[in-house]
């Protein structure tokens, strides 16, 4: 290992899936002692690159060198043996085992010492006796990171690690990356957030459709230059609020971000909604005294109440695992509450089946889009219309695929979804486009009283985020009530009329995002602060969350 050799040197890397070229002649150099960011849109090939480095995929062509020595992993074990640790977004903890058992799977010597070290150095302290399947996603991700750090790797590869982390955890992780680099090792960080790249990265490589679109030291690559490389459009074409969500403007306060947001970036064929359809006022979605108990007896939702008005966008902020998942499951019909009731436009849907909810006008965009949002192995058209197949009948019995594809085509064009057509498998779409399909499907409900969306932009590139936001705003403008659960505070700040904070099964707040101190107040509530600035006790906070607040007549957002 020579002192000057780069930590990782990749050249001519090519990988195809069938006819799809995921990586095409990729060249990438990660210097030792640096954090190297890999940026790019959904489907650009970032994960594929990580999988090749991690030994999960064997490339078709290409040469890799690790600290100067040739490196050609055939399996993940080879990568681990070479001192590479990976953090994947999915599939990396055995759910039926405890955290401790998952760590023991690594078969590291002196595990207790290493655990102690990770605790001391990075402040990460996993609950070793907890069963992984009982843990919320954010906690799992932390375990995932601990797992990688325990190996004391000389190259750490992180594939979108911050998606499920809160701001404080994200900061800690970025600091960890810096520390590893400072120790002379190297980090590859895949992210969609330019702010993170700017804070932690030394250099960046941007991928576009499997090819290297550009790169270099981040000092020479301001966002204005990075964004066009990533999405092929100038940064100025993004709306200002959105810029905040990717960290372009993260550290600047964003008062009235929502107000400054122009009409959506994407094509918006339905902007000309007639005023007659609009409905305003409270009671679109009403949760009263909803309680959900976990298996261990604790409360995932602790007699929570919430009212979302027609045309209102309400955001739920908070560290993951504070009841958000249960709330979504409750709305989606996968979970029945132990106490309380859920009403949609005055109709009790507490125990309604998903089909009835859909009929009543409740659209749900689930958090886990691969598992719940869509059926990846079916074509796009089927995914769009699976719940409404009765519309496409021929001779009363047969399925009219022509009509279905026709209708799907219209939706795909209308929503600007890039895919291989209505017949393309959902799994062949990039993450952003998958999300757009899910959203399109839910937005097409008639009537659409309320849309509940969980992490609607998680893992999406900036372009896709913009499109999703504009869709949500359009729906709200038409009078639809919108509930957005997101761990992305910036997103909530630009999108919502009102933000409540999930904390230990309660909804605290609300906070008005247009207030200059909104970010700080939410931050305090996320830590469970009993006396958030400008608010009373916790109980008062809860009451405030419940109280129907005057809904902006003609929202300044639009």
């Amino acid at each position, binding site marked *: 290992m020579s002192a000057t050799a780069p930590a990782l040197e990749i050249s001519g890397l090519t990988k*195809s*899936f*069938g*006819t799809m070229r995921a990586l095409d002649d990729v060249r990438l150099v990660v210097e030792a002692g640096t954090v190297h960011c890999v940026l790019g849109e959904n489907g650009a090939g970032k994960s594929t690159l990580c999988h090749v480095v991690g030994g999960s*995929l*064997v490339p*078709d062509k290409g040469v890799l060198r690790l600290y100067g020595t040739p490196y050609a992993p*055939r*399996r993940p074990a080879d990568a681990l043996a070479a001192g590479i640790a990976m953090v994947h977004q999915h599939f990396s903890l055995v*759910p039926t085992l405890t955290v401790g058992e998952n760590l023991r799977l690594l078969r590291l010597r002196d595990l207790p010492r290493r655990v102690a070290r990770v605790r001391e150095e990075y402040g990460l302290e996993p609950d070793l006796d907890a069963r992984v399947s009982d843990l919320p996603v954010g906690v799992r991700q932390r375990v995932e990171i601990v797992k990688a750090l325990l190996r004391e790797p000389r190259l750490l590869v992180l594939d979108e690690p911050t998606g499920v982390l809160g701001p404080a955890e994200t900061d800690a992780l970025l600091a960890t990356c810096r520390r590893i680099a400072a120790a002379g090792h190297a980090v590859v960080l895949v992210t969609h957030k330019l702010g993170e790249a700017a804070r932690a990265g030394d250099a960046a490589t941007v991928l576009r459709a499997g090819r290297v679109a550009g790169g270099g030291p981040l000092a020479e690559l301001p966002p204005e230059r990075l964004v066009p490389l990533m999405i092929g459009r100038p940064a100025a074409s993004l709306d200002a609020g959105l810029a905040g969500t990717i960290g372009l403007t993260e550290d600047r306060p964003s008062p009235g971000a929502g107000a400054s947001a122009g009409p959506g970036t994407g094509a918006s064929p339905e902007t000309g909604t007639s005023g007659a359809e609009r409905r305003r006022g409270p009671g679109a979605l009403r949760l009263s005294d909803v309680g959900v108990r976990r298996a261990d007896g604790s409360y995932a939702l602790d007699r929570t109440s919430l009212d979302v008005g027609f045309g209102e966008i309400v955001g739920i902020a908070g560290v993951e695992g504070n009841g958000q998942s249960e709330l979504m499951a409750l709305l*989606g*019909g*996968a979970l029945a509450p132990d106490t309380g009731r859920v009403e949609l436009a005055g109709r009790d849907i507490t125990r309604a*089946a*998903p*089909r009835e*909810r*859909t009929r009543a006008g409740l659209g*749900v965009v*689930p958090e*886990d889009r691969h*598992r*719940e*949002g*869509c*059926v*990846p*192995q*079916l074509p796009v058209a*089927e995914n769009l219309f*699976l*719940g409404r*197949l*009765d519309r*496409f*009948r021929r001779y009363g*019995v*047969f*399925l009219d695929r022509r009509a279905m594809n026709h209708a799907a085509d219209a939706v795909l064009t209308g929503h600007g979804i890039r895919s291989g057509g209505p017949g393309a498998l959902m799994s062949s779409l990039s993450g952003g486009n998958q999300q757009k399909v899910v959203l399109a499907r839910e937005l097409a409900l008639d009537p659409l009283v309320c849309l509940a969306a969980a992490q609607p932009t998680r893992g999406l590139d900036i372009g896709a985020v913009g499109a999703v936001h504009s869709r949500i705003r359009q729906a709200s403008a038409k009078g639809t009530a919108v509930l957005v659960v997101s761990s992305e505070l910036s997103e909530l700040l630009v999108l919502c009329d009102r933000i409540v904070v999930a904390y230990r099964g309660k909804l605290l707040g609300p906070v008005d995002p247009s207030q200059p101190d909104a970010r700080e107040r939410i931050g305090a509530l996320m830590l469970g602060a009993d006396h958030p600035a400008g608010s009373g006790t916790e109980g008062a906070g809860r009451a405030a969350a419940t109280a129907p607040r005057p809904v902006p007549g003609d929202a300044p957002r639009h």
Partner: protein
Amino acid sequence: MPPPPLPPSAPAPSSAPRAALPRLAPLLGHPVSVGLLAVVLAGTAGLGLVLGAGTTPATAWNALAEGMFGSPYAIGSSLNSAAVLALIATGFTAAHRAGLVNVGGEGQLCAGGLAAAAVGLALPAGVPAVLGVPLVLVAGFAAGAAWAGIAARLRTRRGTSEVITTLLLNFIGVGLVSVAVHEEALLRQPVTSSETLPQSAPLPEGARLPLIGGIESPATAIVVIAALAAVITGVVLRRTAVGLRLRSVGHSPAASARLGLPVARLETGGLAFAGGAAGVAGAGLVAMAPSVLAEHFSSGYGFSGLVVGLLARGSLTAVAAVSLLFGFLTNGGINLQLAAGVPASSVQIVQSLLVLFVAAAMFATTRNRSTS
């Protein structure tokens, strides 16, 4: 989330070859050439065993061909066997579309046969065939469906893997037939002497499956029923909303539930249909000559049908083709013993080698999906 425990599902659309593979790969990897290769390999092994038995290959071949197609009888009885296998495999395929692996064909066959015998024997002696036959078949369907329904219910209510429960229900079904034919209170024929065999009395004439191929051929209505079942199932699975819903549930129960599909009902329906089809096959076995219910009447058809279903990998055309192949081979195999003196064990060895080779060869046709 780990995927549901499924064997490789849906036939792999042979995607474009990997750049690294030579041009020949798609040709070699084509299911037909792979199948041929398997047949050739098994045939070679068979040749060795035939020679070992002291028979000439020509004699053996003639015996095999004669046993398969040599007479209307051969063809008819091969068709009957193929029909039984096809029914089971058709049901298997429908359930498999919903993501369920029905290993329970043998047990459902037994349940169907039991119910068919019970209903058939309860009918008056002079019952007309237009009434008797449908009643017997419907009873078979209902019992098979109910038997599979146990597994379906355990799956939807308690999340118990249907692979395991249907496997267990096979043995229980076989046991129930034994019990039923041994006890006079159940289905045993009236015990007139200490020599009365433990089997049911023959079904009345009107409850027996009508022959469809004339005096010479034993082919019964079960052949028509199986063909219809395969065609209708194929159309339903490919061309109707139900088929699409089953597929959706098979790929992702969670997303399907979110989209408002009645997941439990679809799963139960799929598995119950599989059981029902196997039950009809069982009813058919009982209602064919000699039209009695006896111990071991299922004769492993349930397992063979399962193998057919798994080898056909979701295609009903393949179900038809593989059942015919198996049906004819079974009959040819008997004749190989009878006319060429090849021992039963040799025939069994060659048949199982054939299946193993085909199963292994599927690797070649699915490898394109692989990335390592």
